[in-house]
């Protein structure tokens, strides 16, 4: 068991190592180095020299990678070109803002998805299922920027209930954030809930058809007791992994949502740093987002291991 957990953590670390190689090599291979890309037409003379000096572009690439990687491991991402300040200072408030947005969306999204998934599975092909399933299909297929735009148009402009875009500085306090994030949270959790509800639904349906549930029904176990004792624990367990993958996948969509609502989080920083051609920040973001992805998957794996007694004795490999 301990070995299995250690192995999982090891695999995650290897993945992150490869990610760091990919981002580093990618930036090396693509045309233009960080300095010429950033300075564009002013890339000559003293400005270029100073930039090259500061980023250490004059030393060989592998040495630079080792330097960079060892700093990243110690939590130092280097220097932002456009902000003229350490990347850590740029990242700090953004990470906090995105965390607030993501955790509120997840806290609303997951319970709602479980409830909706169970309802649709138990009333399969009946009116509640058809209605909820149609809505989930719509909200999971429509792009984030469309649902966000429609939310602004309807709730903010036509009804005038809430402010349409977030106008707060990136170092806003927690309470300032909360009053501004209602629409972004709705936009993000809509898609997330739809994806997860669908998985919970098919998982519950699968378990309902299994032998032990049929057995419980034949034994005369009351319906709701059967649902809560026999079906749900078995149905929700495999969903954990898929939920984790979905959350991680939605990181890309969060970028778009943050841009639509002008929310000062990591996502908007992605766009800003790419528009400014600030490659050191882009590298840092790639590592951070990949770590979040790996971390979420690792937690899900470990949770499944802890909760499922059958897997404890098995060695699972994907």
């Amino acid at each position, binding site marked *: 068991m301990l070995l299995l957990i250690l192995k999982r953590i090891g695999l995650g670390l290897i993945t992150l190592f490869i*990610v760091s190689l990919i981002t580093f090599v990618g930036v090396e291979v693509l045309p233009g180095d960080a300095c010429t890309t950033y300075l564009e037409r002013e890339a000559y003379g003293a400005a270029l020299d100073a930039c090259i000096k500061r980023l250490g572009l004059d030393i060989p690439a592998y040495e630079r990678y080792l330097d960079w990687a060892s700093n990243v491991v110690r939590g130092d991402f280097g220097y932002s070109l456009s902000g003229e300040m350490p990347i850590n200072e740029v990242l700090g408030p953004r990470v906090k803002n995105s965390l607030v947005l993501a955790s509120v969306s997840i806290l609303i999204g997951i319970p709602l998805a479980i409830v909706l998934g169970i309802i649709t599975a138990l009333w399969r092909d009946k009116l509640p299922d058809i209605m909820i399933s149609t809505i989930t299909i719509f909200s999971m297929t429509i792009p984030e920027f469309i649902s966000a*735009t429609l939310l602004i148009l309807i709730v903010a402009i036509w009804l005038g209930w809430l402010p349409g875009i977030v106008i707060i500085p990136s170092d806003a306090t927690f309470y300032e954030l909360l009053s501004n994030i209602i629409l972004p949270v709705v936009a993000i959790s809509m898609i997330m809930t739809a994806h997860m509800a669908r998985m919970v639904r*098919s998982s519950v349906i699968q378990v309902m058809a299994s032998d032990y549930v049929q057995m419980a029904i034949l034994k005369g176990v009351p319906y709701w007791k059967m649902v809560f004792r026999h079906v749900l624990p078995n149905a929700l367990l495999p969903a954990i992994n898929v939920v984790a993958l979905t959350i991680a996948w939605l990181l*890309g969509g969060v970028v*778009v949502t943050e841009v639509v609502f002008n929310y000062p989080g990591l996502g908007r920083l992605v766009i800003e740093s790419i528009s400014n051609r600030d490659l050191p920040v882009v590298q840092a*973001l790639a590592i951070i987002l990949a770590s979040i*992805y790996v971390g979420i998957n690792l937690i899900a794996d470990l949770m499944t291991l802890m909760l499922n007694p059958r897997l404890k004795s098995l060695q699972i490999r994907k």
Partner: protein
Amino acid sequence: MESNLITEDKQKNKLEKAFEILKTMASRPSGLIGLAIVLFHVVLALISPYIAPYDYKAISPNTMLLAPSAEHWFGTDSLGRDVFTRTILGGRTALTVTFFGSLIALLWGGLLGIFCGLVGGKIDDVVMRVVDAFLSIPWILAMLLIVSLLGTSTEVLIPALGFFYGKGIVRVARAATHDVIAKDFIVSARARGHSNMSIIWNEIIPNVRDAILVEGAMRWSWMLLGFSSLSFLGFGVSPPTPDWGLMISNARGLMSFAYWSVIAPIVGLSSLIIGINLTADAFAKALGIDRSTKAPV
């Protein structure tokens, strides 16, 4: 002569089978709606240059932000361009780019996945680690970086999208291959002395094709979503080319009083994505594959 007859027979069987699958797909209302929407969009994309009532890039200060009327069915945008014209033309680039992108994704992802599933061992381990690493970098970050450094031409977008949406197919193809290679007919093909290539081509591909095709259909709708997100963010199609993502992003600022110029492209893009999704769902069901248990990786 005889072998000719056999291949002809096989060809006919394939057509019949494809027709059969189409019929099963259309037998459910959701599948029928999906197929109809996709067909509508494909036909529209083919004929729209001939039926467009106005020039899509004709700017005129006299017709700025007009409300929908008999002359301009969907109104005009902030530069005085006809929104109806731009909307019916707006899917052409997106459809072409994502269609070819999906083909590339299917090909490299499918073949690499089958190869890894078949050979296993060290090569498989290394490839899967690299695929995992690529999966953990958000697609949008990688795509934005590539596009901002290499430009937004279709020659860049198609391979880049094909590459980034293919890595998930590697996993699916590999898993499907694992299910197949333990079966007896593979063992007997090996015993007959067939080469790896021959086994892949004649034994494995026919058996994993369905799973990969369903995955490819899904990728198509996600790629469309990704492509229009890029356009929306200003990193996709460059103006004045009509494109739904770009139109929505341009019209968004003025939607408090000119909502029509944002509604039309929204309907266009959403209906196409929903259509492809419904079709892919029906396709999966017709082939007996349940994909609602899978995460969108």
